[in-house]
């Protein structure tokens, strides 16, 4: 089967290197108009964001973003067949090589940048020219009618896509060195009552990765393509390759060509036109010479553009009737907030059946909490760890600062939400908020690959404290019972690298001071990391994302909310009136008060 036909059968997904929302939207509009079930753009490689919101029809979708090609998770990576590289000319070479290192079996791509150095282009063509379809450098990309739109090709607003009937399969292959003229020709094909089979904008650069001859052979071998429509310019000698292909009978399909640039004859000296290649350096590269060579080989290469359009009308492949795409994509309003469905709000839970309690799922509430936050179903082991953590962190006595604030606020006559908020607002780096910091530390420690001693050295420079290490009450010899029970979860796991690392850090720190033991924050962070990795299949990047979203602090905030509410209720029950700090418990340093003389 031909290459193009193969792609029609299984087009695959596009991963963009760099962000270009206008092109992305055009790709999604094309997909939508072509009746696809989901966008062909499966991800974007860009730092500083995790998702990009685009229209899907009149609705919206989030396309995920990743910091590098390697960071693309397996479920997305599986779909990737195409690279859309919209980076600048400086970055095109490196980013293209990284993409194909991560996706060696991808079918090809499009290099959008205009200023790709010639040397980079020739190196890329040496690496990928024979095995992949790559449109560019420069130009607008690669299009298969109704199947794939890789780039700005055919237009960037929905009106243009509809007017050119891009979502339909056709019979005329459009090949052009000029990006703008690619669009022009695609429109002309539609105006001539035909549709595009596929189109490649080979770009105005001197060294297109997939060459004109390659594209013509794709057209020749594509059963759906009945004729070829070509736009070329003065400069370069690619057209002589066409002549050779025709003479060798390798290229047999009817072809029309317009070679632009006879205006060059009106100038005193040869002019550099917009495209890098569009400069006549030798006589046989003139537009007139190339037209004549093509004509003599049997290509219809008219002298004027209107004549060229007449020839286009005569090509085979008229459509029977003009099917109107009735979808209107105008008038769209972008939403300003997006989220996901956290829980299934459509269905209730069934606890009682036939006047009897049904057997609930184990650790049902902890499981529900974790699943809501993580956005996926979890195993019993993870739910049980959640249960252990939630249960042991409900309260840690009325002395801790958050509980005190809750109680003081309650006694000032405030309501539950205010009192709870006062308590919660106390949660921070010194109280309860260290779980997330501990998770970040264990992740970093493993990523750096330092021995624990070196890690401790680095992190405690300048007197900084290590999150997850140290306790006021417990010390070596007096272990924290909560840590001991959480630590047992390590027995459920085959590997527990974060927990091991935390313990080796503890070994280093306790050698300095017996109080610097692994505390409950550090232990739960480490084991939750290990559990999510082994039992739920989270990658390091997933875990990093959880740290950034402060998931690990939620492990404290959720149960402690119940603790604070309990303290609030207790205050309301006792109702001891407004709290005031007794004088003997407050030291007032009067000496420092400066008085005006």
């Amino acid at each position, binding site marked *: 089967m031909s290459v193009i036909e193969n792609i029609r059968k299984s087009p695959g997904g596009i991963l963009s290197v760099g962000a270009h929302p206008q092109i992305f939207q055009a790709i999604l509009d094309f997909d939508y108009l072509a009746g696809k079930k989901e966008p062909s753009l499966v991800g974007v490689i860009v730092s500083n964001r995790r998702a990009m919101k685009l229209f899907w029809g009149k609705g919206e979708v989030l396309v995920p973003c990743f910091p590098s090609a390697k960071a693309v998770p397996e479920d997305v990576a599986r779909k990737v067949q195409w690279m859309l590289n919209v980076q600048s000319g400086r970055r095109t070479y490196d980013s293209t090589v990284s993409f194909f290192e991560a996706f060696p079996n991808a079918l090809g791509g499009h290099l959008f940048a205009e200023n790709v150095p010639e040397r980079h282009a020739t190196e890329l063509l040496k690496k990928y020219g024979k095995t992949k379809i790559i449109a560019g450098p420069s130009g607008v990309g690669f299009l298969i009618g109704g199947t794939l739109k890789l780039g700005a090709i055919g237009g960037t607003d929905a009106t243009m896509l509809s007017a050119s009937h891009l979502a339909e399969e056709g019979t005329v292959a459009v090949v052009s060195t000029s990006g703008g*003229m690619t669009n022009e020709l695609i429109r002309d094909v539609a105006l001539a009552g035909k549709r595009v089979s596929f189109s490649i904008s080979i770009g105005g650069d001197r060294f297109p990765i997939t060459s004109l001859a390659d594209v013509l052979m794709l057209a020749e071998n594509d059963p759906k393509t009945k004729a070829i429509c070509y736009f070329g310019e003065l400069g370069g000698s690619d057209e002589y390759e066409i002549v050779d292909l025709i003479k060798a009978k390798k290229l047999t399909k009817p072809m029309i060509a317009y070679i*632009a640039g006879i205006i060059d004859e009106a100038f005193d000296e040869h002019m550099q036109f917009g495209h890098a290649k569009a400069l006549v350096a030798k006589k046989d590269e003139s537009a007139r010479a190339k037209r004549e060579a093509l004509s003599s080989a049997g290509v219809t290469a008219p002298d004027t553009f209107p004549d060229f359009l007449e020839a286009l009308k005569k090509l085979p492949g008229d459509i029977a009737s003009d099917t109107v795409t009735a979808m209107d994509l105008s008038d769209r309003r972008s939403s300003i907030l997006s989220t996901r469905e956290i829980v299934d709000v459509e269905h209730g839970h069934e606890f009682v059946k036939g006047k009897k309690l049904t057997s609930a799922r184990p650790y049902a509430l902890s499981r529900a909490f974790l699943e809501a936050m993580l956005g996926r179903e979890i195993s019993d082991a993870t739910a049980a760890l959640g249960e252990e953590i939630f249960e042991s962190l409900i309260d840690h006595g009325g002395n801790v600062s958050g509980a005190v604030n809750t109680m003081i606020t309650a006694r000032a006559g405030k309501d539950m939400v205010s009192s709870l908020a006062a308590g919660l607002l106390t949660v921070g780096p010194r109280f309860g908020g260290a779980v997330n910091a501990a998770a970040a530390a264990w992740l970093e420690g493993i990523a750096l690959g330092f021995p624990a001693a070196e890690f401790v050295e680095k992190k405690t420079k300048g007197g900084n404290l290590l999150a997850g290490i140290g306790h006021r009450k417990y010390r070596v010899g007096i272990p924290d019972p909560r840590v001991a029970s959480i630590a047992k979860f390590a027995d459920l796991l085959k590997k527990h690298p974060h927990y091991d690392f935390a313990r080796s850090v503890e070994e280093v720190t306790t050698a300095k001071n017996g109080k610097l033991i692994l505390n409950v924050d550090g232990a739960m962070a480490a084991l939750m990391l290990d559990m999510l990795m082994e039992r739920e299949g989270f990658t390091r990047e997933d875990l990093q994302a959880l740290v950034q979203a402060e998931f690990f602090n939620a492990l404290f905030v959720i149960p402690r909310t119940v603790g604070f509410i309990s303290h609030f209720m207790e205050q309301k029950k006792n109702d001891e009136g407004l709290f005031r700090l007794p004088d003997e418990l407050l030291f007032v340093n009067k000496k420092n008060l400066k008085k005006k003389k």
Partner: protein
Amino acid sequence: MARVKLTEFRAKSLILGDSYNGISVRAGEKFQIPVGKFVAKVDQGVKKRFKQGLVAIDKKASELGSFFKAMGKKGFTQFIVEPMFPHEASEEQYFSLERVRQGLRLLHAKDGGVSIEEHPEQVSNMILASREDCAAASRKTGIPQKFLEHLHDVFNDNFFAFLEINPLIVRGENVFLLDAAVLADSAAQFFVKDAWTDADIVRAKAKHANEQAVEKLAATTPAALSLKVLNKDGALFFLLSGGGGSIVIADEVAARGMGNLLGNYGEYSGGPTREETYLYAKEVLGLMLSSKSKKKGLIIAGGVANFTDIKQTFAGIIDALTEAAPKMRKQGIKVFVRRGGPNEAAGLKAMEEFLKKEQLLGSVYGSNTVITQAVEDAMDIVEE
């Protein structure tokens, strides 16, 4: 985005490194030339300098001043001065390297000298697919392998696109470059750091005031703006947008044999802002208004744009047209429009209403009309 000429001085400095003993002289700058006999040449990318009399041979340092002065009168400002290199004409060879799809194409002729164009059949042609091919090329050309490998490295490290040494003289293991010309890849300027810079690029000087104004404007924007004056008393003036489409439209004029009536050529593309488009259009309109031609037409045309916002760029053109309208009416100039792309309908509507109001309307077409229609209409009017 294109191949640019480097000065011969920079080209040789890059190839020969510290052993190069040429001196670069620029008008108005101080220079020192030691004792000895010298060759002085104009170093501004001019071809066939010898035939044009832009070279002085076998001169003492004291005699060079008058050469520079004479050249200055012809408008040249950059020179290269090298010690005289006595040799026989029979020693002169031709050598060039060019970046092509398969690698570097090497052209060589044993009896090259300065008249290589007249003897293309004597030129041998080979491809250096990699550095390793230099050995075979050395055997075939008699040029030392080490030197070829060095050239291969210099060519790639400095992102050259074309290098011509003509004449080249080989004496055993020693190689001498009498004249050298290099085209470098302007897209690679970032990668070569300071090996060559803007100061080393020779550019044809904009001759016309309007060209110079556009050149200045183009240097301050990421959009692509260009203007070339073809005939200051032309009848047809262009405001074209987008590379390929612009050539198609201009071709139509050439096809009807009216190339001599073309006042200007140039493009605005790459998404210029309203203000940039205004400034660009102003230069073209100024040029058109000062043309002495009795019948004149303005063509605002382009293909179906990918990104350039039609509404926005047309607003800039309307700003410029508003200023020029009274004079245009007086001269009986009509405006012919064809354009497509994002915001096409709104842009075309604004333009048509404006032209009607100002009595400048020739015709206005969108992307469903053939790209050349506006220029056809304009030619019909001018031809009457």
